């Protein structure tokens, strides 16, 4: 049976792992290569490596770090942040990444995902969506409004590391990317990110049901129960988390044992 995946995420700036609280306030969390080794041993199913400043400052991703990580791990490994072109994708893959995430560039260049899929295959193209709630009083004609415990809302796609709102409906955008050939969606709730109070389960569930793609939920993990909820209520296929692992609040092994005891299919070592 296909297992649900637990994926530690490394937000990297200047070669160091950091994790911002709601994208601001960056704190140093350590060496990504060492963390990658430790996490594979603890049972991480994959690793995601995001160069969080690359997109904003138009810098190339840290290919050297990617090569070093690829040398020590034998689990799949995704690289993102500042992937803007076919040659960026090619460089990341040839440095040892198995997949890339495309975020802002998918919005800015509507052909990039389709073109990338044609050349590299769906399996290595992950579309990353940063979504933020926009609360509304009533249903809307051109937005998909969902009734959540906190009120009615739709979700807006933000780009450039959460700095720029696009006016695009995240659920509709996910469907468009599904049709464009994306292999997976990495869905980050900007409202929940860094808060450690749980994932945005209504968002995750809405997109999981609207598309036929594996969904990696991101933003908000504070406890193993939060992860359990996003894999069940949120219908996510994988849960991504940073702070709770990097700060050794819960080890990956502990989280996976908890999920397994709750009946979730999980790869245990």
């Amino acid at each position, binding site marked *: *049976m*296909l*297992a*649900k*995946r637990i994926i530690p995420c490394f937000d990297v700036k200047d070669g160091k792992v950091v994790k911002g609280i709601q994208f601001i306030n960056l704190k140093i969390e350590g060496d990504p290569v060492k963390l990658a080794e430790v996490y*594979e041993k603890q049972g991480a*199913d994959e690793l995601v490596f995001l160069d969080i400043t690359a997109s904003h400052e138009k810098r190339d991703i840290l290919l050297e770090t990617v*090569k070093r990580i*690829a*040398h020590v791990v*034998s*689990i*799949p490994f995704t690289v993102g942040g500042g992937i803007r072109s076919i040659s960026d994708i*090619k460089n990341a*893959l*040839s*440095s*040892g*990444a*198995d997949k890339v995430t495309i975020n802002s560039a998918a919005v800015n260049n509507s052909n990039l995902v389709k073109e990338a899929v*044609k*050349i*590299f*295959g*769906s*399996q*290595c193209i992950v579309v990353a969506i940063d979504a933020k709630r926009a609360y509304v009083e009533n249903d809307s004609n051109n937005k998909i409004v969902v009734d959540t415990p906190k009120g009615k809302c739709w979700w807006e796609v933000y780009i450039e590391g959460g700095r720029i709102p696009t006016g695009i409906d995240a659920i509709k955008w996910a469907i468009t990317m599904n049709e464009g050939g994306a*292999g*997976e969606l990495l869905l980050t709730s900007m409202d929940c990110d860094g808060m450690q109070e749980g994932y945005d389960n209504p968002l995750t569930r809405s997109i999981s049901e609207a598309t*036929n*793609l*594996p969904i990696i939920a991101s933003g908000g993990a504070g406890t193993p129960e939060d992860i359990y909820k996003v894999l069940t209520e949120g219908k996510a*296929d*994988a849960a991504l988390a940073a702070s709770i692992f990097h700060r050794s609040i819960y080890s990956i092994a502990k989280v996976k044992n908890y999920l397994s005891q709750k009946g979730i299919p999980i*790869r245990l*070592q």
Partner: protein
Amino acid sequence: MPKISIINYGVGNLRSVRRGLERTGAEILVTHNPKEIRESDAIVLPGVGAFSTAIRDLASLSDLLKQHVEEGKPILGICLGLQLLFTQSFEGGLLEGLDLIKGDIVKLPDNVKIPQIGWNTIDIVKHHSLLEGVKDNSYFYFVHSYIPKPQDTTVIVTTTEYGTKFPSIVAKQNIFATQFHPEKSSNNGLIILNNFVKNVRR
């Protein structure tokens, strides 16, 4: 030390296959040079990307690969590399493969999310040297939208369940192939690569 050639046919991540095989102590070449391939003790056919692109880029080497197999030298197909060994694939129309194993490559059923991405278990159908030290129901990492359907079911070594039950390892004499990525499957995957290299030494 056995010399193993990883066939380099275009785009994709060959670093991890190389790294995984290097850990076994074998001498590894990443190449599309016919002379180097001819001189190697074994071949690994990796796989990332689309069937149509891969089979086109392999066209000039296909006779060489078939000759290698006829000489009794081992070949390991990984993921798309497994699929290329079959007679034909329905990915992007109907395309001919290398026909080293008789059968078709067909799409996963549409009652599941496609591609299958992640860790899934193998059910061991029959004992095989590739599986020495690997327990039944072990997890391996899969990324694929198509699955093999061999004509002769005796080539099936393990099966995996995803919407349907499909062969996840097939083997026929000196031909070995995995639908999952051993190089991405942590310790279990490294055991499989090691077992393949042991086969080369035999």
